C-alpha cells in the first residue's frame, strides 16, 4: 500500500492559536541555508573550476626557504596580521543593505580626485621628477629666473639723486612749540625736519659688531685661551659673590620655624594691646598724679605782642630798603654805559663756555654705553668660550658656541636702539 502522504492539515488561521499551530520549519531551514550561502558566498558545487583551483606554474620557494635565525622567524611572524584582531574583522560576504551608511572617510578619501592628483604631482616635483617637456621649456625657465630675482625696486642710485630739502618756515617771531604744532597739524607736515643727526641716527659709540677676543679663536694660542677663561671666571665669581650676599642678607637671616609655632607667634603679635586677648593690656592705666591742667602748646606771652607802631616801623624800613636798592641799580646802569666793551667780551666768553660745555655733554652722553630705557635693566650676554677639551684644532671638528641672533638682539639693547625686555609679544 502506497504510503499516502498525510495531507497537511490546514487549520483555520483566524486566531492567534491557529497561526501558532502552523509548521514553518521547512521555510526557515530554507532561509537559513540561503543566508549561509550569502555569508560564505556561492556554494562550492555551484562554483566554476577556475574559481576553486589554479594551475601552479611556479616553484614554491617559500616552503623551501628555511628560516635559519630566530630573528628572521620572528620577523616573519611580525609581518603576519595579529590573530586577536582577526575576530573583529567581518568575514561576511553580505553586502551592506544600507548603502548610504554614515562611514567616516579618511581625510585622503574625502579629497577631490582632481585635487589629489595635483598634490601627487607637487610631491613629484618636490622630489625633482619633472616632465621633460617642462624642463626644456626655455620661456618658462627665463620667466622663473626673473621671478626669482630680488624685488625690482633697486633700480636707482638714491644717493645720486638731487632731492630738494623741504624749506623751513622762517619763524623768528613764533615760539618753537607753536611752530611745531602748526607744522604737525596742518598740511605742512612734510616740512617737519628730521631731528638732529647726532642725537638720532646712532645713539651709541659701541661698534655694531664687537670684535672677538683672541681666545675665542677656533684654535687659540694657550695664553689667549687661558686669559679668556680667566676673564670669564672672574665675572662668574663676582656673580656668585653677589648671589651669596643676597642669600645671606635675606633667606639666611631668618630662622625656619614650624608652622604651628609661626601661627602662634603671629597671634601673639596681632593681639598685643587688645585688652580681651592680651593680659598686659587688660591692666588698668595708672591714674594721673594730680588734677592740674596740661596743655600741649606753651602759653602765649601777651607782653611780646607787636603793637601797631612797631609794625608800621617795620613796613617803613622795608620800603626804604627797596627804594635804596632801586636807586643803586639806577646808578649802576649809568656807570655801566662806560663798561659796554667789557660786557661784550664777557658775553662772548660766556657763550663760548656754554658751547664747550654742551659739546662735552653730548660727547659724554655718547660715551656712556647703555642708558636706562625701560623698566628692565640691561644685561650683557655672557662671553662664549670652548673648554680646552672641546678645542680639537681642526675646522671640521669645531664645536660652535653662542647664538648670533641673541648677540645681535643684545647688541641693539646695548646700543640703546631697543629697550631691554624679557618677554615681548
Amino acid at each position, binding site marked *: 500500500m502506497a504510503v499516502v502522504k498525510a495531507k497537511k492539515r490546514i487549520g483555520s488561521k483566524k486566531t492567534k492559536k491557529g497561526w501558532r499551530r502552523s509548521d514553518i520549519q521547512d521555510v526557515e531551514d530554507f532561509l537559513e541555508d540561503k543566508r549561509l550561502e550569502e555569508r560564505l558566498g556561492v556554494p562550492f558545487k555551484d562554483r566554476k573550476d577556475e574559481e576553486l583551483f589554479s594551475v601552479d606554474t611556479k616553484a614554491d620557494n617559500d616552503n623551501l626557504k628555511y628560516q635559519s635565525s630566530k630573528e628572521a622567524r620572528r620577523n616573519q611572524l611580525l609581518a603576519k596580521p595579529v590573530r586577536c584582531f582577526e575576530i573583529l574583522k567581518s568575514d561576511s560576504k553580505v553586502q551592506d543593505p544600507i548603502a548610504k551608511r554614515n562611514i567616516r572617510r579618511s581625510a585622503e578619501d574625502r579629497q577631490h580626485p582632481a585635487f589629489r592628483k595635483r598634490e601627487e604631482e607637487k610631491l613629484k616635483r618636490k622630489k625633482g621628477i619633472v616632465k621633460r617637456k617642462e*624642463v*626644456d621649456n*626655455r620661456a*618658462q*625657465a*627665463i620667466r*622663473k*629666473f626673473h621671478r626669482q630675482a*630680488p*624685488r625690482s*625696486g*633697486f633700480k636707482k*642710485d*638714491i*644717493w645720486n639723486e638731487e632731492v630738494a630739502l623741504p624749506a623751513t618756515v622762517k619763524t623768528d617771531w613764533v615760539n618753537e612749540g607753536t611752530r*611745531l604744532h602748526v*607744522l*604737525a597739524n596742518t598740511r605742512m*607736515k612734510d616740512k*617737519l*625736519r*628730521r*631731528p638732529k*643727526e647726532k642725537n*638720532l*641716527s*646712532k645713539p651709541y659709540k659701541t*661698534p655694531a*659688531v664687537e*670684535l*672677538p*677676543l683672541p681666545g*675665542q*679663536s*677656533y684654535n*687659540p*694660542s694657550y695664553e*689667549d685661551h687661558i686669559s679668556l677663561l680667566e676673564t670669564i671666571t672672574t665675572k662668574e665669581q663676582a656673580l656668585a659673590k653677589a648671589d651669596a650676599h643676597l642669600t645671606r642678607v635675606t633667606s639666611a637671616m631668618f630662622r625656619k620655624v614650624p608652622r604651628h609655632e609661626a601661627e602662634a607667634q603671629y597671634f601673639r603679635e596681632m593681639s598685643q594691646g587688645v585688652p580681651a586677648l592680651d593680659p598686659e593690656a587688660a591692666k588698668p592705666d595708672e591714674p594721673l598724679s594730680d588734677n592740674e591742667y596740661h596743655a600741649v602748646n606753651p602759653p602765649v606771652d601777651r607782653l611780646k605782642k607787636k603793637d601797631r607802631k612797631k609794625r608800621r616801623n617795620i613796613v617803613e624800613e622795608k620800603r626804604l630798603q627797596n627804594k635804596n636798592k632801586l636807586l643803586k641799580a639806577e646808578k649802576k646802569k649809568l656807570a655801566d654805559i662806560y663798561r659796554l666793551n667789557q660786557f661784550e667780551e664777557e658775553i662772548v666768553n660766556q657763550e663760548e663756555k656754554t658751547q664747550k660745555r654742551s659739546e662735552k655733554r653730548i660727547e659724554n652722553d655718547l660715551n656712556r654705553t647703555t*642708558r*636706562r*630705557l625701560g623698566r628692565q635693566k640691561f644685561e650683557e650676554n655672557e662671553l662664549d668660550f670652548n673648554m680646552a677639551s672641546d678645542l680639537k*684644532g*681642526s*675646522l*671640521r671638528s*669645531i664645536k*660652535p658656541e*653662542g647664538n*648670533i*641672533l*641673541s*648677540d*645681535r*638682539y643684545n647688541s*641693539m639693547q646695548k646700543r*640703546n*636702539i*631697543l629697550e631691554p625686555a*624679557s618677554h*615681548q609679544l
Partner: protein
Amino acid sequence: MGAIRKRKYEEGAGNLYISRKRAMKKLQLTLKDFRKLCILKGVYPREPKRRKAAQHGKGGIQTLYAKKDILFLGADPMIWDMRKLKPHFKKMAKAKGRRDFRELRALARRHPKIDIDHVIKERYPSFIDAMKDLDDCLSLLFLFAQFPSIPGVPHKFPHEAQKLITQFLLLVIEARALRRVFVSIKGYYFQVELRGQLVTWIVPHQFGFVPTVKRNVDFKVMSHFVELYITLLGFVNFRLYQQHNLIYPPRLSNFTYGGNTRKGTEAKGTEYQALPDRIASLNEPLRKSRFTVPEEEQPLDSFLLSDNPDEAARMQKELERTNKLKTLFNGLKIFVNREVPREPVVLCIRALGGEVSWDKVLFAGATFNEDDETITHQIVDRPSMDKQYISRYYVQPQWVFDSVNAAQLLPVERYLLGVVLPPHLSPFFDPTRDQRYKPPEELEIFGSQSEEGSQGAKVAEKKASEDEESSEEDEEENEDEDEKDSEEESEEEAEEPKEDDIDEDLPEEEKQRLAKKKKMAVKKGTIAKEEPVKPELEAREDEYLRSRLVRNKHKRLFNSMMEGRKKRMKEVKLLTNKRAQLEAEAAAAKKEEKRQRKKAAAVLQA
C-alpha cells in the same frame, strides 16, 4: 592784564618727552605698528636727564620718546598705509567667513604695500653713512639667510637676504676688498674695505639650524630690522656695482642671456635653471657695464698730509699691506675638498686673486677637476688621503686664513695634511695691549705693531729657510767658505807691506830727500766729526723732560702707569729669554743627536 598762568610740566623736561603709551595714542597706532615705525625710521627711546619731571611726576621707569621724534614720525606717509592694514584684514576675514574666495583673492592682490625706500635716503643722507651702518646690516642678513621659515618672519626674507648677500660677496670679490678674516667658535669674522670704509661682519658656522629659545629674542622686532636692512643693502649694492663698473643685478660674463636670438648661442631652459646656483657659487666672473663710471678720487695721500707722524706711518704700512694682499693668491690654482666649508674659503681665495674649484657633484660652478695636474694647492681637512698627487701641496684650511691675515703666502710646512696646526690668532689688534709677550709665531703673521712691519716677514723667511735646509750640510759648506775667506784675507795682508817699502837701490841722498819729502807732504785733512746724538738717547731724554712736566696732581697716577709698564716689559723680556733658551736647548739637543748618529754610522762603516 594778568600774567599767563604757567602749568606744571609745560616747560623743560616735562614738555620734551612723551611716554610710549601717549605717543601711540597720538599717532593712533597699535604697539606692533608703532614699534615697526620706530625701527624703520630710526627713532629710539631716550633717557631723560630729569626722569621725574619727564614722566610728569609719575614714579617708576617708563619708556620715553622725544616729543619731536614723535611729531617727526607722524609726518611719515607710511603711517597711512599702516592704518589701512586693519580694515583690510577685517575685509579679508569677512570674505573668508562668507567663503567668497573670488573676493578674497582680489583682496590679497590689493594688499596694502608699505614702501620704505624713502626711509633709506632719509636715514642715510650720504652714501658713507650707509656704509657705516653696513656692519649691522650684513651680520643680520647673513644670519637670516640661513633661517628656515619661522613664525613672525615673512617667508620671503631669508630668500631675499640670501640673494643680496650673494651679490655683495660677488662685489667684494670683484673689488678685491677682503682685508682680514678670523675663524672663531661663533663664526667667521670678515673685514673688507670698500670706498675707504672698513666693514666687519660675522657669518655663522654652517651646521644645522638651531632654533632660538623664543623668550630671548623677539623675532618680530628682528624681522623689522631685516626689512630695513634688505632695502638698505639693495640700494648699497646698486651703487657699489655702478661704482665698480658692473651690471646690476649681477650677470655672468660667460653666459648668453635671453634677447640674443641667434640660433646656437642662446641658453637652454636647463641652463637658466642652473643660473642662480652658478651665481651663488661665487666662482664666475661678472659682466662689466658698458658705461664706465669715472673713479672717485680716493683719499690715498691723506696720510702724507697728516700731522701725526705715527698715524702717517701706520697708514703707509696699511697701504703697503693692502697692495700686497690684492694679488696674494694670484697664479694659484686651489682645489677645495668636500669636507672643507666651501663658501668662506672660496671667498678668501677668489677675493685675493686665486683660482678655485671643487667637486662637481658638491655644488654648481666648479671650474676644474681634482685630477688637474696644474693644481698647486688642495685644501683638505682630514687626517690622511688615499690618493695624493705629488704636483701639489695638501694644506689645511687655516693656511688660507692665516695667509690672508699675514698678507703673504705662509710656508706650507706647518699646515700640511695631518700636521698639528699652529694657533689661529686674531687679526683684530687691540693696540692698548701692545706691551705683552708675542711669540715668534705671532710676529711672523702680524709683525710687531711698534716695530717695523718688515720684521714679521723676516721672521717668516728665516723660518722658511730653516725648515728647508738640511742643517748639517749647510754648516759644512759654511765652514769651507769661512776657511776660504780667511785664506784670502791673509794673502791680502801679506801683500800690503810690500807696496809700502821704498826701493833700496836708490842713493843715500835721494833716500833722505824722499824721506823728508814724505814728512813735508801735506796730508789730506779730515773733518772733525761731532758725535751725533743717538736717536734712542734723544727719545729717552725727551720722555724724561715730558715726565717732568706732569702735574703734581697726576704724579701718582703717572708713576703707577710707569711702574706697570716696567713690570710688563720685564715680563716680556723674561718670556723672550725663556723662549730663546728653550730653542737653543732644543737645537743643541738636535745637533748632539745628529752627531751621535753620524758617529754610529762611522763606526758601522769601519
